[in-house]
């Protein structure tokens, strides 16, 4: 009697969901609390900085909007990559995976540029409460994106060595879940930090 008790999720499960999917959702729920705490810190300290520069002095909303759109687009390409793989089109899946990774890198690059601009405008990590909470929050998010890019590039590597066929669609789906989560968190960050106006302290 062959009983496979290994780490694949092809065993019957009590809920019918594969273990990996359940695990990813639970992990993402946990990650929500992480960003919740960071965003709460930012919101709590809104208007509390003793010295400038203040948000209105440095934010370039049009620029960050473009950057946000880039990240949003990458979620679309992620979906397309998964769909391509699921219908067996490995070649297309590679294209869309690459596109997702490139869009992600563009986003991160855009953030790096944005932060260097802020630094030139005298807003560094330790300048004031705004800088402290802003850089740590967006830094955490950026790190999450970077890890996602690493995962995408790894998937690409597997794909090129012939090991990412349609039977591995689930793995791509998991990376996709993570990627979409990171995108949604950015939407919240962009709205709460950039879009909601905050008057500078008198």
């Amino acid at each position, binding site marked *: 009697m062959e009983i496979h008790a290994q780490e694949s999720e092809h065993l019957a499960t*009590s809920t019918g969901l594969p273990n990996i999917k359940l695990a990813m959702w639970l992990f993402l729920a946990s990650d929500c609390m992480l960003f919740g*705490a960071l965003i709460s810190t930012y919101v709590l300290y809104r208007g509390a900085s003793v010295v400038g520069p203040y948000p209105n002095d440095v934010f370039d909303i049009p620029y960050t909007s473009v950057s946000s759109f880039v990240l949003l687009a990458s979620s679309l390409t992620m979906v397309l990559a998964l769909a391509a793989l699921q219908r067996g089109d490995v070649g297309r899946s590679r294209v869309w995976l690459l596109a997702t990774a490139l869009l992600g890198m563009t986003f991160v690059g855009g953030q790096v540029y944005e932060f260097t601009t802020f630094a030139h405008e005298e807003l560094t990590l330790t300048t004031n409460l705004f800088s402290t909470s802003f850089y740590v929050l967006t830094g955490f998010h950026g790190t999450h994106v970077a890890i996602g890019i690493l995962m995408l590039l790894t998937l690409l590597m597997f794909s090129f060595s012939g090991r990412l066929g349609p039977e591995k669609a689930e793995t791509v789906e998991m990376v996709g879940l993570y990627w979409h989560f990171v995108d949604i968190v950015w939407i919240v960050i962009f709205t709460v930090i950039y879009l909601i106006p905050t008057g500078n302290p008198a």
Partner: protein
Amino acid sequence: MASVSVRAERPRGLLRRPTATTGFWSWFTTVDHKKIGILYGITAFAFFIIGGSEALLIRLQLARPDQDILSASVYNEMFTMHGITMVFLVVMPLSAAFFNYLIPLMIGARDVAFPRLNAYSYWAFLFGGLFIYSSWFLGGAPNGGWFGYPPNATVDPSLGMTFYSLGLIITGIASTVSAVNLAVTVINMRAPGMTLFRMPVFIWMGLVVQLLLAFSLPIITIGLTEMFFDRRFGTHFFDPAAGGDPVLWQHLFWLFGHPEVYILILPAMGIVSEILPVFARKPLFGYQFVVFSGIAIGFIGFGVWAHHMFAVGLGPVANTAFGISTLIIAVPTGVKIFNWLGTLWRGDIRFTTPMLFSVGFIAMFVIGGLSGVTHAVVPSDYQQTDTYYIVAHFHYVLFGGAIFGLFGGIYYWWPKVFGRMLGERVGKLNFWLMLIGFNMTFGPMHILGLQGMPRRVQSYPESLGLSFWNLVSSIGAFLIAVSVLIFLVNAVASFRKPKEMEADPWDARTLEWTTTSPPPEYNFDEVPVVHSLDELWHRKYSQTQGGRVVPVPAGGSGEAHGGGHAGGHGIHMPGPSYFPLIAALGLPIAAYGLIFNWWLVGAGMVPVLAGFYGWILEPSAE
């Protein structure tokens, strides 16, 4: 334990995937949940001895007024490390030991959902603990209290609190990853027929604990990150001069910290809920109520955190809200006591050592719970907070509660894990000495607190009239130490006995007792099919027409399954792996780098990346 044969693998890259599941080195590569459970248990117990020694030093210093056995600086490190050790490096991993070993066995699974991730959690925990302790030699141990309130914790010039913030992030990663793993295991890998309401209470408590961990740990991770950034990079999260608010830390800490105390107590409550029915020979009274109250505690536990902050000045409205929510949570907590009493009622009670610890748990937890209710009387809490009255409360629930429950579990499952019993007579001595010593140590602290002794004081003057009870308390602490030594003697002596334990020495009720003691690597010969709660009991006993409980005739399905003839069955278990250890090793290296040298951070990233890539690339044992 029979070795499971795995076909030799083509080596991929530098490291051939290991195959041995026995022998010394197998402990470093094991992904077997049972071995990992044992590793957690041994490590946690070692930290228990260390944390206990720290407590003895504290009690030595406080035995008489105005002493200077420990200087103020060392004393502050001592109580800080005692708290950190007992909470994060003893009770949590000891509970993890039980969860790791027992969850698959009790739900009829062969392993957890992600065996290598499981190993990773253990190694990350071990390295995190060692990292924190290395601070003694590298610039001073943490000295800001286990609760680390800024600004005191952020402005302290020694490196201790930096080690604190990074070390607890590492152990937090270990626990979060483990929480996801075990939650998925419970939700998704139950044996056929084991619906949620046929799960043992211990499993339910385990599920609630994993969810509490998953949702509360990220909050303190952020708090610790913010503290680390303030200390290392000069940010202003908790810096009042820049407009920062030290109270933000308190919110973040206690939003984790309160669910944390339920994380600490629910496993022991689960253990006691398993032990009582076995030795009273009747089922847990009100299984559903006990389960629902555990779930309720999990939810409400997120709504009481500011009862640790009543004196902070949040205002009467906030204090009222949290006072009321604290009173509310007393209900599901207290209700369980009645259920346990109902289990004893009209039972046929055998006072084995596990049973003694479980009854002791109830007795001590009632005291701790009642003093907790008095804290909820907010104006009175203005007097109680930050005094030894609080110290008394939490030791009654965490030592008299959690530790007693865990010791009960150790005595109860020892034969299953190690194939021998712990000595009963020595066990009883262990229990009574511990009970007396414990009450002698912490009972007087109620009085000391109300009579004016604050917490975290290196000494107290003779004139305050606190000397007598402090002396009694210190003597009690040494009695506890003796009782722990007796336990160690008992443990060592048990290994001198031959390893010939039956599957079900206690005549128990749950699935782990259907397989051999110890279980084979694959847990069960055949995955059990479950028809009811207390499945094993119902296989052994049935009820006659007249309502009498009688054994099922011999030859029924009560025989133990599993054993030597399994080797040829072809049950393939996940193979061992180096990579979880390697990946975990990168964490402390990177952490040292964050404190001392940026190159080390890069160096730490190498094993992290190598570990994870090796992990995903290595062939599975097929």
